[in-house]
């Protein structure tokens, strides 16, 4: 059992260790505890080594001793002899300086004291607490081996240890007792000098001991329950990995996970000793077990990781083609400039390599000098900053066919290099670093929805990080209205007729009320294009909403329903002149989003107040077709035309009263609106006449089970923060889908089934004619068999409609109960962009609409 620096720094943490060790004893195991130095002590010892002045060294040694005295004091223990001896040894080393031992050996001897002291202290505490514990000097057990390419520094400060099983040691320990405590990080070399194991040393010590003793298992106790499918700081939905083989774990550790140093796995591989990662504070959690490969699971991607700060060197030359020794010459330059190559990709005339962000790379002339040398033999391009995104999982090649959606995502990016190693464990993409933070959570979702990361296998995948460690209450998915309270009603409605849309107004109201808690927002508009059903419009009038329309048709429809006093907003795109003429005749605030109207029809707007929709130059959203910012989108006035627009506005006496931007749909990151808001406010400051900012909608509604909802409280906090800086502007928003998506379902009935090799198709009586989102946006809608909601989901279906189009698929690979003709199928989250986007295609009848009050 290995415990790190923070775990051994305080009395309560030692009590915790006592309990854990005692519980293992109770299971009948003999326990060897490996400890790090108290937090901060290793740094203090390193610092001590840098002092040239003897007095300062002695002072530093005293301060280090005091830390241990203080902790002993807390434990109400006298200074044990073992600890006293170590302390006086340290004092002597500090006083003598490096003259006798030599600089490096002296530094190693000094730094070894962090662990020597903490273990001596621990032995005293555990024994005194009724758990007789033998203090063991790790240097008597771990023998460093000399390797051919080592220099004195690596030999002494980052050593390797012979980890072949040592039955003699095991036998010796068996005679000495049941519980031992020893030091991480240190060993002894052949001349008898103390050496250090370097980075990750304490974990590695534990592995060495595990291998030497052929232990039942090695337990690494740390501050997190194990390895996750992604870095939880980037992907809060990352799932705990409960089971990994050594190679996978090593790959994950090497490509990003910080919880375990990759080198500590190799000693365990041969003796097949499993390693268990456990959370000291949450011992009840299962943790991650790393052991020999087991063949009882479907192949799955296990993790996705990103390493940032990577520099690529791309070398282009026709000279290299079939020329013996070309690459050898090229790589000689890398060696000469001290740059170590990681990934390599090559074509007939190009070789591209990646370099990790070392100090040498970042802060010396190395790259400039390298480029100068390489430029003599080829064209060089230095590409940075890049990030390597790695998918890890055994049998990666057999997963390739599931990755098409993931690969399509890379298709929209600059991918500089793709690498797949022959060990079949990983697939790496090198992309621009700036895309990574948003890309990673998205890819993680895509991997799950593509069935490449099989989170449905509860053997392999544990709870999400959010659930285990997320702040506050883990958002437990509220049961959808259709699942329980309204299920019977829906079955009756479906018995009358299908296909039909059903809208649940209490859900609309609930969503509206939630948005009304956004204190910073002065006016909320419902973007009616999502669903123009009169009952929904009326419900939202009652909740105090204003309305946003994009066409005269919508303006008419809304005007017919809402009271005179309800504010309207008209936000069209590429609308003809007469649309503006019409809108100007209503009470709606009119939004312009290009130069053309004010340039060519300027007099139409004379004396009027307008809203200007700008394009802030980038887009967001769950699919390319819902991104509405950036040059690739037709919406908004590009910022470089703003000055001309304002000039034309001035010329025609048009007052720009509001600024508007809307970057896309399905955004789940609250920070996004804060950015749009602040960016609009800083633009507005230069315009003067502006009194309100419309930051659009696009509030995301998660569709996959387990996907985190948009945090409205966080959104409120972000908006309030910006509002505090720009109190002079009113804040408007225009949510659409957020209000109505969950409130609507599409009911259909099973028609026929078909099997085609491994695929099973489940036909229902409507498809893309009623709901085009899956075909148009690859949108994922939950689909359930409402007639058999409680039956086990054993079949894997492709749910398809009756339209003569290959794209008429509502859901792929859906785990559902075996269906029968006539079963009622429910397609969830169909309240937004469902009926309003439906068509008569194939001249199939349109779904009708039913409202549940």
């Amino acid at each position, binding site marked *: 059992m290995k415990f790190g620096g923070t775990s051994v720094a305080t009395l309560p943490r030692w009590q915790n260790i006592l309990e854990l060790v005692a519980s293992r004893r109770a299971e009948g195991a003999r326990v060897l505890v490996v400890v790090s130095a108290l937090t901060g002590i290793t740094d203090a010892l390193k610092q001590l080594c840098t002092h040239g002045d003897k007095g300062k060294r002695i002072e530093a040694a005293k301060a280090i001793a005091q830390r241990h005295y203080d902790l002993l004091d807390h434990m109400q223990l006298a200074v044990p002899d073992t600890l006293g001896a170590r302390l006086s040894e340290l004092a002597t080393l500090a006083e003598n300086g490096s003259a006798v031992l030599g600089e490096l050996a002296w530094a190693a001897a000094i730094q070894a004291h962090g662990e020597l002291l903490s273990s001596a202290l621990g032995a005293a505490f555990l024994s005194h607490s009724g758990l007789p514990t033998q203090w063991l000097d790790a240097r008597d057990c771990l023998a460093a081996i000399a390797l051919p390419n080592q220099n004195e520094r690596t030999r002494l400060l980052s050593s390797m240890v012979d980890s072949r099983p040592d039955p003699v040691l095991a036998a010796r320990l068996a005679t000495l007792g049941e519980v031992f405590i020893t030091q991480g990080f240190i060993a002894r070399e052949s001349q008898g000098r103390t050496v250090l194991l370097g980075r990750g040393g304490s974990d590695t010590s534990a592995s060495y001991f595990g291998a030497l003793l052929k232990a039942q298992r090695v337990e690494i106790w740390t501050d997190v329950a194990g390895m996750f499918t992604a870095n939880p700081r980037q992907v809060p939905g990352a799932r705990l990995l409960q089971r990994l083989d050594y190679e996978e774990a090593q790959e994950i550790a090497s490509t990003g996970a910080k919880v375990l140093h990759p080198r500590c796995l190799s000693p365990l591989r041969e003796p097949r000793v499993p390693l268990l990662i456990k959370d000291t504070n949450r011992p009840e959690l299962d943790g991650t077990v790393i052991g020999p490969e087991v063949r009882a699971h479907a192949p799955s991607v296990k993790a996705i990781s990103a390493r940032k*700060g990577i*520099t690529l060197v*791309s070398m282009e030359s026709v000279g290299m083609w079939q020329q013996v020794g070309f690459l050898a010459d090229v790589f000689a330059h890398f060696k000469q400039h001290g740059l170590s190559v990681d990934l390599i990709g090559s074509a007939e005339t190009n070789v591209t390599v990646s*370099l990790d*962000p070392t100090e040498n*790379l*970042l*802060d*010396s*002339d*190395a*790259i*400039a000098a*390298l*480029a*100068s040398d*390489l*430029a003599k033999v080829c*064209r*060089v*391009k*230095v*590409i*940075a*900053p890049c990030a390597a995104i790695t998918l890890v999982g055994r049998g990666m090649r057999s997963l390739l066919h599931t990755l098409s959606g993931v690969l399509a995502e890379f298709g929209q990016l600059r991918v500089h290099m793709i690498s797949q190693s022959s060990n079949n464990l990983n697939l790496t993409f090198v992309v*621009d*670093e*700036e895309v990574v*933070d948003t890309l990673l959570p998205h890819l993680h979702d895509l991997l799950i929805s593509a069935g490449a990361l099989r989170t449905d296998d509860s053997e392999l995948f544990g709870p999400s990080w959010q659930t285990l460690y997320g702040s506050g209450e883990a958002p437990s998915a509220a049961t959808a209205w259709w699942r329980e309270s309204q299920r019977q009603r829906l079955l009756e409605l479906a018995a009358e007729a299908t296909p039909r849309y059903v809208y649940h107004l209490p859900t609309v109201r609930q969503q509206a009320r939630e948005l009304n808690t956004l204190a910073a927002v002065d006016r909320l508009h419902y973007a009616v294009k999502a669903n123009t059903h009169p009952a929904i419009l009326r419900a939202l009038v009652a909740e105090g909403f204003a309305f946003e329309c994009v066409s005269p048709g919508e303006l008419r429809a809304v005007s017919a329903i809402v009271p005179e006093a309800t504010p309207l907003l008209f936000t069209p795109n590429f609308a003809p002149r007469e649309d503006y003429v019409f809108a100007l005749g209503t009470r709606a605030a009119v939004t312009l989003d290009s130069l053309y109207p004010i340039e060519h029809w300027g007099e139409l707007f004379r004396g009027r107040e307008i809203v200007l929709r700008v394009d802030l*130059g980038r887009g967001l959203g769950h699919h390319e077709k819902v991104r509405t910012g950036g*040059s690739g989108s037709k919406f908004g006035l590009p910022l470089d035309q703003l000055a001309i627009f304002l000039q034309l506005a001035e010329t025609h006496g048009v*007052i720009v009263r509001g600024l508007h931007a809307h970057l896309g749909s399905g955004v789940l990151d609250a920070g996004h609106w*804060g*950015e749009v808001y*602040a*960016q609009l406010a*800083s633009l507005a400051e*230069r*315009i*003067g*006449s502006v*009194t309100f900012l419309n930051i659009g909608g696009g509030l995301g509604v998660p569709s996959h089970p387990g996907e985190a909802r948009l945090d409205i409280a966080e959104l409120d906090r972000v908006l309030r923060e910006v509002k505090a*800086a720009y109190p*002079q502007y009113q804040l408007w928003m225009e949510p659409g889908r957020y209000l109505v998506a969950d409130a609507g379902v599409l009911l259909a009935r099973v028609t026929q089934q078909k099997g085609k090799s491994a695929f099973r198709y489940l036909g229902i009586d409507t498809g893309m004619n009623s709901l085009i989102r899956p075909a148009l946006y690859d949108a994922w809608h939950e689909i359930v068999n409402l007639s058999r909601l409680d039956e086990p989901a054993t079949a894997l279906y492709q749910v398809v409609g009756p339209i003569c189009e290959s794209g008429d698929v509502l859901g792929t690979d859906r785990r559902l109960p075996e269906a029968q003709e006539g079963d009622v199928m429910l397609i969830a989250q169909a309240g937004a962009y469902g009926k309003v986007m439906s068509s008569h295609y194939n001249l199939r009848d349109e779904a009708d609409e039913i409202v549940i009050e």
Partner: protein
Amino acid sequence: MSKMIQPRLTQLFRFVRCSYADGVAELAYAFDDGEELVERIRFPHAPAIPAGHAAAFDAALKLLHLIAGVSYYKAGVPPKIEVASGPLDDATAELLDQLYLHGLAEFAYRNGLDLRGRITFPRGAAAQPPAPAAGLPKRTLVPIGGGKDSLVAVEAIKSIGGEATAVWVGNSALIAACAERTGLPTLNIQRELAPGLFELNRLGAWNGHIPVTAVNSAILAVAAILYGYDSIAFANERSASAATLEYEGQQVNHQWSKGYAFEQLLGNWLHTHVASDLDYCSLLRPYSELAITRAFAKLMPYFDAFSSCNRNFKLLGPKPADRWCGQCPKCHFVFLALAPFLPKPRLLSIFGRNLLDDENQASGFDALLEYQDHKPFECVGEGAEARAAMYALSQRPEWQEDALIERFRSEILPQLDASQLALEPWLEPSAEHHVPTRLQPALATIG
């Protein structure tokens, strides 16, 4: 506002009064017979005004009132200016006439106004005898802005063991973070614009760039007397004096109040009107932007904290994209000017992307080079400096193949006189500066 005003039709701008009590200066202005517009400036933990410094303090406060008025005056630009406390002496009136005319030149250009002959501060009061020395403590106020320049100035003063305080006006998490990084004591002065100004903007006031450095300078002059500092050391570089463009015969300089002319005007005025031992200078005046970026390239501890970008919305945070928008002239210039002096991977890690390998940024860099465009209205170096930096990169193998460097080599360079593109001359300091003797050793550490 009880009475609706048409800001653009006002006839008279009035400096109504200014006062100071308990760390708060109140500056009142009005248009015609409209309501008072009251700006407040809060000096934190203000001590009592030191005995014997009352006259110096009053003089500095009065100047602050007159200079800060530019934010309000510009809302209406009325033809007449009135100072309630009576006419000014000639030196004061001259300082203000110059400041309002040149400091608002860009504002005038953008709004199609001509302010020449329109700005006349009332003058004619007898000149007072020159102010005596106030015996101010030998320490320096260094205004910092979160960008590289002020950090170079801070480090120069630290390197000669000078005592200094990092000061800034207004709220900025970015500046606070940078100030923290300097390890100096900090002073954060708050400025609250009169709420009525927002109202005027709604009513159609003129709007645009004001010489904000002049306002901050005047605030710091008050602070220097109040807290006891003998010097205010800005970090305005040589090219700040260069005009952005010429418009109907008038030089328009976006950063006139950061230029040498204003530095001399204000420095001399403070000597004669406030205290003969209060020095106002720019520590970076002899240096080009390139010389300063070279000095900054050695200050690694600031790399993940600073930002010169004034477009970005968050301006704080661990990610480069939080601090650099990557789209504005500031981002373009700082990227280009640092590039010759930093290893390429380090530079790219600061910005989080390679702006010079992005074809979409071509027009932004063209503007810096003054190629097919005029200099942008931002505080950026002279076109020739940008060309020198670009030329230097075009000669480096690790940069040559980047999209915009490649474009420079093939398209722009053939049109330039290569003998005018050397980097080295830009690294030489000029003799022109206003730095007091006590701080001159710091000046030498930058070059």
